[in-house]
């Protein structure tokens, strides 16, 4: 863009687009503290501001419990994925054992298998196991991920063999090699897998809607979705928006501080998929 005018048009255009991305969020946060009658106004000014909507929200649904549940589920399954998928990735990348090629192909196969196929059978399984309305139903199906294994495998393939040989001569077992030598050198991939998996679970709404009925076990996306559709909000937009705002705020705060990691992680995982 050597042309100066072109450059200015681009900047103004980008500014307008950026505004269209930021303003709705800003508007949402402000709308939650406006009086109900003034919520629909386009601007941010109101005759008064109050936290009434949040009070009503906390009265109607156990949303803080949902926040806690979301946190428990996302943290547990992410830790599980980091540990068990790096085990599998290490085995596939660095250890020769019979059936390795077959297992690698199985993993690739599960990645192309559309989730629509196994959604209902998985639910039926949860019923048979007696897992409906348990944390197990929310966590265990996400306790490993084929994609995470492949990311770990790819990363571990690039590590020098000398590292492993030296560690083995020192008498380290494979678990020690993985966790004490490979892990400290694998921060980029641990961060990538961690963020991508955590965000995926944190935002997942369909699966909880299927396996959870008990309000005390619901995750945030599920509870807010049900609240918005089930009429508990009694058509009060302010209360519905408060629920959405409460769900958005932690993510926005974390994103502001760690945006570089978020963007890089999601870009890497997108390009490798």
């Amino acid at each position, binding site marked *: *863009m050597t042309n100066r005018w072109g450059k200015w048009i681009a900047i103004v255009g980008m500014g307008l687009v950026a505004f269209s991305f930021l303003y709705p969020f800003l508007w949402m946060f402000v709308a939650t503290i406006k009086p109900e009658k003034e919520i629909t106004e386009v601007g941010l000014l109101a005759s008064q501001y109050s936290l009434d909507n949040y009070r009503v929200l906390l009265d109607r649904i156990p949303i803080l419990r949902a926040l806690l549940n979301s946190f428990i589920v996302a943290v547990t399954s992410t830790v599980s994925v980091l540990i068990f998928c790096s085990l599998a990735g290490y085995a596939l990348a660095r250890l020769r054992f019979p059936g390795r090629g077959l297992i690698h192909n199985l993993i690739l196969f599960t990645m192309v298998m559309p989730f629509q196929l196994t959604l209902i059978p998985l639910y039926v399984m949860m019923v048979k196991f007696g897992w409906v309305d348990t944390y197990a139903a929310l966590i265990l199906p996400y306790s*490993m991920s084929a994609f995470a294994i492949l990311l770990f495998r790819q990363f571990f393939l690039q590590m020098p063999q000398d590292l492993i040989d030296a560690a083995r001569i020192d008498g380290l077992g494979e678990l020690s090699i993985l966790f004490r030598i490979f892990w400290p050198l694998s921060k980029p991939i641990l961060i990538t897998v961690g963020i991508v998996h955590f965000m995926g679970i944190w935002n997942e709404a369909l699966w909880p809607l299927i396996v959870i009925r008990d309000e005390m076990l619901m995750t945030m*996306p599920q509870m*807010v979705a049900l609240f918005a559709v089930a009429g508990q909000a009694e058509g009060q937009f302010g209360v519905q928006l408060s*629920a959405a705002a409460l769900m958005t705020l932690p993510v926005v705060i974390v994103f502001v501080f760690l945006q570089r990691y978020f963007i890089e992680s999601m870009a890497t995982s997108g390009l490798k998929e």
Partner: protein
Amino acid sequence: MKYVDPATRSVGGLAKQEAHAGRVLIAPYIIFFLIFSAYPLIFSLILVFHHWSIVGPLEWAGLDNFAELISDELFWKSIVNTLFFIAIHVPLQVVVALLLAAILNEKIPARSFFRATFFLPVVVSGVAVTVLWKQLFSTDAGLFNQVLAWFDIARVPWLSSPEWAMPSIAIMATWKNVGLYVILFLAGLQNVPRSQYEAAEMDGAGWWAKFRHITVPAINPVVVIVLILSTLGGFSLFIEPYVLTNGGPMNSTLSGVLYIFKQAFGFFRMGYAATIGLALAVIVLTVVLIQRKFVERED
């Protein structure tokens, strides 16, 4: 993985030990695969030949579910709706993302601010975004119609007319996801050497000529990824219509996954819901395969 003095290990012993360690380390995945991939897969092939309403035993149904599927107008409507969504959403996504990425690739100020801004909706929950947009889309009091009114444009029935509802959802989904694809395209663009552009400029090429003849060919692989990812995303459309319209008006936003959900948890017809899932999976794989073939031939 006990300590073994290296001096006492034979080469054969080493290989054996390695194989043993390999089996132990992969074991958790094998268990996971059997329970959460293999079993549901096999079970889906059993379920589609049965009726089951959660209570009581499986009832043999033969080919009933398939016969019903073929003559089920709602099923076909849900497929057409999903394809309609993809037909709007995917091209829109690719064009907007590519345009924004191309501008971000130039030397403009505040690039990382723009990048982060476009990415923000990607990390925010789809439910939160949908609840927010439900308000923006409202026909009487929504922000969009109020802004349009400033320019004397008549109210658009964003979600309340069968013609507009699905395109509206596609617009929202593009706003929600485009940031991810901007980043992917940007990564692709940064691999194009500056010297190529400089050489083209010396030959007097304008912005469009450079874009058409240098940028587009260079990022073709990324286009393939973006096409496939956003198509897969399109086929999993669920939470947006669930929250905004519950499939209406007149079933115009009933997506494939939403229909599975309704059959399973509205009518408790697990066998039939599984059959829709199987059909949808076959369609997904077919479309992605065709896309791949088509794009590869373009190269």
